[in-house]
């Protein structure tokens, strides 16, 4: 059962091959047996999950099963869930039980989806390896000595290990796509504004976007059509009709124009990763697509611009964690300043503190113009690069990350860690959608192909990924980890 896709499980439930309770119970058993090694969950909500599964079974029996009725999945612990701890991977929120559901959580619930729990992540979504979690690092199921990527590493590892068929993640600079690539699953970052951010703990508000992580593009389509759409509680969500993504998967690739940004195939790209990606592009050519080289000339400015804008927004977004109203509070503060200082010194991890300090500095009087304003100008140039490229081609393709998953503890220097996101970060700055699709291996570790499309062209993106998955079986490969358990 744990090898099946969301779509297959939905069909099994419809056909009565198994009940939602059986399905969810088997997933919970798997989590209990295997997650001690992976550490992909922060909280498992078994009791609630089984109650929801029973409710879904009853709904199905009475003939009104919704799109995701009875299907198990997991939520990155950045989405607020009423009555359930929402830690964001931080000691600061270790005791925080959200008093409300995020909009996407509400939508998943309304569609009958059953959450089995909250997945591990880099603290406040800051990181590319999942080593920055208060709850400890997550292991990559393909190789327990490797990282799963981050920040949605828990969601990626849980799906790859077959603990859940799908999960929700968030992506601010690559946090869905890079762990999807490292763990050999499919992960979609939607267009900024496509999915409501209400109830998603903010890291960098102008870049954050929630999205699906699953085995296949078809499963991502099913999830995206559930969670996408305008939300009156999020002014930055866009009022635009949500297409029936599942119905648009079977598009022909004949004549599809694929651009390969030359900047995505330069120095620092692992040769095995490059080989896998070029092989994947050959598959597309064999399916009738036309390939050409394009240029995104400001690519080299993406990481510097991101590491001004994201920390600036984060420094402000994380000011609310002051020990006054919720979350961690230091013992016996002597006065207000002591309360603030010790609460924040104790509650935040190193990387979070680093980014708060960077952001506070770049917004300071005397530095604002040189950093923040300049970064915003660069951001516009980067966006324009993509718009220009999409005048020439339909989609862009390249590697999701420059290397396969690296070993736990291997990246000691923050800047080399930041460089992990070199192909993903510009996409967030531009606000366009991107998907990572399994496209082979470098040694025993998966490689992801990244496909990018214009704003709101998720249907095309999912169709292009789906066609690849009809022609290849990379997405069907399963790690040895947990195989012994049926």
């Amino acid at each position: 059962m744990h090898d099946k896709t969301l779509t297959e499980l939905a069909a099994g439930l419809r056909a009565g091959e198994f009940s939602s309770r059986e399905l969810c119970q088997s997933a919970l058993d798997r989590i209990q047996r295997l997650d001690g090694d992976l550490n992909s969950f922060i909280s498992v909500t078994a009791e609630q999950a089984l109650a929801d599964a029973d409710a879904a079974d009853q709904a199905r029996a009475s003939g009104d099963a919704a799109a995701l009725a009875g299907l198990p999945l997991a939520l990155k612990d950045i989405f607020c869930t009423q009555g359930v701890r929402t830690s964001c991977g931080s000691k600061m929120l270790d005791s925080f039980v959200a008093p409300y559901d995020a909009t996407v959580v509400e939508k998943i619930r309304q569609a009958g989806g059953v959450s089995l729990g909250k997945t591990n992540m880099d603290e406040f979504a800051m990181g590319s390896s999942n080593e920055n979690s208060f709850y400890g690092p997550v292991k990559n199921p393909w190789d327990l000595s490797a990282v799963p990527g981050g920040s949605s590493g828990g969601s990626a590892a849980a799906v790859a290990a077959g603990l859940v068929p799908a999960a929700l993640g968030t992506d601010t600079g690559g946090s869905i796509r890079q762990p999807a690539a490292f763990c050999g699953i499919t992960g979609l970052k939607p267009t900024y504004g496509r999915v409501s951010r209400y109830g998603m703990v903010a890291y960098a508000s102008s870049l954050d976007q929630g999205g699906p992580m699953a085995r296949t593009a078809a499963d991502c389509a099913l999830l995206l059509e559930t969670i996408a759409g305008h939300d009156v509680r999020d002014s930055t969500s866009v009022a635009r009709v949500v297409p029936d993504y599942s119905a648009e998967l079977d598009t022909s690739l004949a004549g599809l124009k694929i651009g390969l940004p030359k900047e995505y195939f330069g120095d620092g790209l692992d040769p095995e990763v490059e080989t896998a990606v070029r092989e994947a592009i050959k598959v597309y050519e064999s399916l009738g697509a036309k390939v050409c080289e394009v240029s995104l000339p400001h690519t080299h400015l993406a990481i510097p611009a991101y590491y001004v804008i994201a920390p600036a927004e984060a420094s402000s977004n994380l000011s609310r964690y002051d020990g006054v109203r919720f979350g961690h509070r230091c013992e016996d503060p002597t006065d207000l300043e002591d309360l603030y200082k010790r609460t924040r010194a104790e509650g935040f991890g190193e990387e979070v503190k680093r980014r708060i300090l960077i952001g506070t500095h770049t917004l300071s009087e005397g530095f604002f113009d040189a950093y923040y304003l300049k970064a915003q100008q660069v951001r516009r140039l980067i966006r324009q690069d993509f718009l220009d490229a999409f005048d020439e081609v339909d989609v862009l393709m390249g590697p999701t990350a420059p290397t396969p998953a690296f070993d736990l503890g291997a990246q000691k220097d923050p800047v080399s860690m930041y460089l992990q996101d070199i192909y993903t970060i510009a996409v967030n700055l531009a606000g366009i959608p991107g998907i990572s699709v399994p496209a082979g291996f470098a040694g025993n570790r998966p490689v992801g192909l990244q496909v990018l499309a214009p704003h709101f062209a998720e249907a095309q993106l999912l169709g292009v990924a789906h066609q690849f998955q009809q022609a290849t079986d990379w997405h069907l490969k399963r790690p040895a980890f947990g195989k012994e358990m049926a």
Partner: protein
Amino acid sequence: MMQWETVIGLEVHVQLATQSKIFSGASTAFGAEPNTQACAVDLGMPGVLPVLNENAVAMAVKFGLAVDAEIPETSLFERKNYFYPDLPKGYQTSQMAQPIVGPGKVEITLDDGSTRSVRIHHAHLEEDAGKSLHEDYHGMTGIDLNRAGTPLLEIVSEPDMRSAKEAVAYIKALHAIVTYLGISDGNMAEGSMRCDVNVSVRPKGQAAFGTRAEIKNVNSFRFVEKAIAFEVERQIELIEDGGQVVQETRLFDPERDETRGMRTKEEANDYRYFPCPDLLPVTLDGAYVDHQRALMPELPSEKRHRFENQLGLSAYDAGVLASSRAMAEYFEAVKDVCGDAKQAANWVQGELSANLNRENLEIGDSPVTAEQLGGLIQRVMDDTISGKAAKQVFQALWDGEADSADAIIEARGLKQVTDTGAIEGMIDQVIADSPVQVAQYREADEAKRGKMIGYFVGQVMKASRGTANPQQVNSLLKQKLDQA
């Protein structure tokens, strides 16, 4: 002795009268139990997002139009970052570089009836913070976040005022505008209008401004006047003693009528403003602005001019009556009932205002309604009662003796006697009872007679218990006395 000139600029925070908060659906009602009107958004819970209250935008635009300001097509919300326990998110969502209301001007009226113009630098929308409660918590501080997220319009003037009186006149003018527009209840005691006053002094004739002090949170017309008076004196004394004014924030202590410097630590704040990524820029097209313009009521200055030009009131009367929406509406209602603007103006500013002042009431709390007062004036104008009796009737209405002037006139028998026969009867009686005075009168010349007739009029009025029409009594008396 050096001649000093005072320079004053004001930042006035007006609490907008929206039903819900500026970025959330929680209620803005005043006086609820602490923290019962703060939702997840107001509490700054993880993951929440602000949604701009369109009503607050409409109100700000109306204010802008009322002060002849430019309404920029695009305005922007920014975050002002600082830590304080009653500021839940660690930043205040405000406007800085691109406020919703651009430069404008307000006409102020001074006590002598003269007017002048004060320039508005800009006005911007922002959210209020909560309140720290320092009493009753045994050395701890309580936080009430009911007020957090209440919409404020901060109106920033140019340093155009030259005296405390001008500053007060300016605040009164703003008060009139916002209450006319219905965008604020203007209740200063509940904090609906709060002023930060920037004061400096300079030698008369000097072009450069002196160093200013900012006096925070001065919350009544009277306190504004006192705070400025104290501050001006303090600064002049300081400079004349060879000292220098430091730029600082000061607090007004209403108990002692003085201002005191706050810790300078507060000054070191770098607020790290940057555009709020959770809110889209506000774009207002001409059609929207025109629509808001069409919804605006007549404003104080327009009313004043109409009272003067169409109703024929004096500039002074027009100014006083138009000074508040409640006063103007009351006056117009009285005028509509009695049909005479001059009479209505006299009564509202005379008898009514005197009574209101004596009992410290607002016109909205007047026990005599406009309908009742108009009815009373009608009875004076149609000679049903004398002016003297009218005052009695007014007092009776004030005391709530009856619902209408007519009922009181009836009950007290104050109706003027205009029946010539009845008056003649009384006159004949008075003449018969006063042979000495009649003889004196008849011997007197015309000039003296004019004075002496007052005695007879008084006697007749007394006999009629004030109900005889004095003009009628006068002319009939003349006829009868002169006859012989």
